[in-house]
């Protein structure tokens, strides 16, 4: 592993960092939703896919450009998320949490099935917006601008949401609701609306990630489930207890994946799972150590 050129190594690390940004955004959304609803949202990948297709269709059908898609698609998917919570997940709040999990699982199969039926399994390209084309030379290596943009945009988004939840009044309601929803309700805060908003926020974040991913990976129905399963492994390692933990473990595992592509390419698609297995053997409670 010592005869690998530095350029290749750094190149793969940046690719890994980009993947890590997607893991971070998805696991952050999962953690926010889990905190208030106690639901592991299996439809998170499908919402991500919905965001990517939303961007694709906005461009193809309405000619809406990338920048507007980045705003419109998350809002649209957020509204869909709010509807899902209001109409379905709310009815399941009283029964075993496994049923909510199973519901979102069925929803994921349903949504993926619809898009596969209409658009087929093949990927559809989405052009990189003009402003973000090309490569920059940063001295020791050359980087595509779009990859830099993904890292900047997703870190800003994750940071913004972290600030929103940790530092604002609204966030303090949210954190209090995570700890003890009944007491918060008794203090006069509308918890049911807060729950709907939270699910919508998680869904919008997934869709934002989906639009970001559209030019980089191709838009295809299975893109969500493939990414989500890896994200689950990330979540098992990092735990759902803290938001910063979710973001950090997402980034770290993305970089680890990038490194494995250089050192031992055969395991690059499974290295996150291997890391998860190792963590389970060494520290069964996960790195952050808070059992749900």
């Amino acid at each position, binding site marked *: 592993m010592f005869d690998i050129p530095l350029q290749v190594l750094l190149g793969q690390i940046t690719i890994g960092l980009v993947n890590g940004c997607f893991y971070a955004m998805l696991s952050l959304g999962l953690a926010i939703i889990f905190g208030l609803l106690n639901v*592991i949202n299996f439809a998170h990948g499908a919402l991500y896919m919905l965001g990517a297709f939303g961007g694709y269709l906005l461009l193809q059908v309405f000619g809406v450009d990338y920048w507007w898609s980045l705003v419109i698609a998350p809002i649209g998917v957020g509204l869909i998320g709010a509807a899902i919570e209001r109409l*379905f997940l709310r*009815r*399941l709040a009283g*029964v075993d*949490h*496994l*049923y909510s*999990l*199973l*519901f979102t*699982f*069925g*929803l*994921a*199969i*349903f*949504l*993926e*099935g*619809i898009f*596969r*039926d209409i658009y087929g399994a093949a990927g559809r390209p989405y052009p990189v917006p003009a402003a973000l084309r090309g490569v920059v030379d940063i001295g020791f290596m050359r980087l595509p601008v779009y990859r830099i943009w993904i890292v900047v945009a997703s870190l800003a988004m994750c940071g913004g949401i972290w600030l929103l939840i940790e530092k604002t009044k609204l966030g303090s309601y949210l954190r209090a609701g995570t700890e003890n929803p009944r007491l918060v309700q008794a203090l006069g805060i509308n918890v049911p609306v807060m729950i709907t908003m939270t699910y919508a926020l998680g869904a919008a974040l997934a869709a934002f990630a989906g639009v970001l991913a559209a030019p980089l990976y191709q838009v295809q129905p299975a893109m969500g*489930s493939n990414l989500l*399963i*890896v994200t*689950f*492994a990330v*979540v*098992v390692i990092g735990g759902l207890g803290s938001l910063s933990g979710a973001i950090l473990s997402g980034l770290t595992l993305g970089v680890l994946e990038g490194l494995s592509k250089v050192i031992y390419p*055969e395991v690059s*698609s*499974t290295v*996150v*799972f*291997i890391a*998860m*297995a190792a963590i*389970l*053997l060494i520290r*069964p409670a*996960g790195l952050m150590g808070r*059992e*749900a």
Partner: protein
Amino acid sequence: MRTSTAIFLAILTVGVAAPFGGLYPLFLTKCLAFALFACSFNFFTGNVGLLSIGHAAFFGLGAYVAGHALKVWGITPELALGLAVLVGASLGFVMGGMAIRRQGIYFAMVTLALAQMVYFFCLQAPFTGAEDGLQRIPRGRLFGLLLLDNDLVMYGFVLVSVAGAIWGLQRLMEAPFGQVMLAIRDNEPRAMSLGYDCRSYKLMAFVISASVAAFAGGLKAQTLGLASLPDAHWTQSGNVILMCLLGGLGTAVGPIVGATFIVALEGYLADFGLINIMGLTIDLSTKIPIVIGAIFMLCVLMFRKGIVGEIIDRTKQYLRNAQAPVAAKQVDTLLQK
């Protein structure tokens, strides 16, 4: 009569009668293989209370191992299937050993992630034929004597082995082992304080479940002559969850009912092809995942006990109203154990 014996005899009776009712042996064989798969899933999730989303790994690997052994090594079916069971048990031991370290939703996520690893293995391993899978797997001669190429003969073999395996699973539930499993599901700390090693019980149940799932996968590969990637894909794990949910999770015959229903539905949709509704031509064969997903959501929203669970409840309600508490209790012990 024990429930296990009753179920064993019921499967054989219905199974022998079904071909005379005009149903194709190949369709029935497929139903049986999936019924066994569903029972294996139910044996663990229904009785231990931990949701596994990784059972496709055992089913798929069982199919590949049996298929490879029959096609490339040309060994007899009972050895090939035995090998599939052995591989399934070993994989179950490894996966279960890791997954039972976590509880609840984490358990579900760990099983899903590990099963995805097995899927990647199936995609890349040299003996699985990648995207094509293993095709035209011969059925072989049972014990080197009985040629299984005839669909009806194959059906007879599958019927007896599936009925036997389901009997075994049910008999285990009636044994002290099964009762301890239920105790762990209902109150783990209490079972632990009574001196039971909960973790080994869970692991043992997982290994048994995994080996039976691999057996079902092997039977499926042998019958249809095909082992391919969809067998190991996560949607297959979803399918088996739906089968149990639809039939009645935790009930003895629910998974069999649910599996038959889903296999029949898939077959119906695939065969029907194009239909015409009010001038709109719809190709039903590509709508299977949509229908599966929709039934899944409906089941969870308003039909959580499943077909068999609802029947049990209604019967008990009826007997209670008819002032027959003893009979209600008998229904309980007969069906729900």
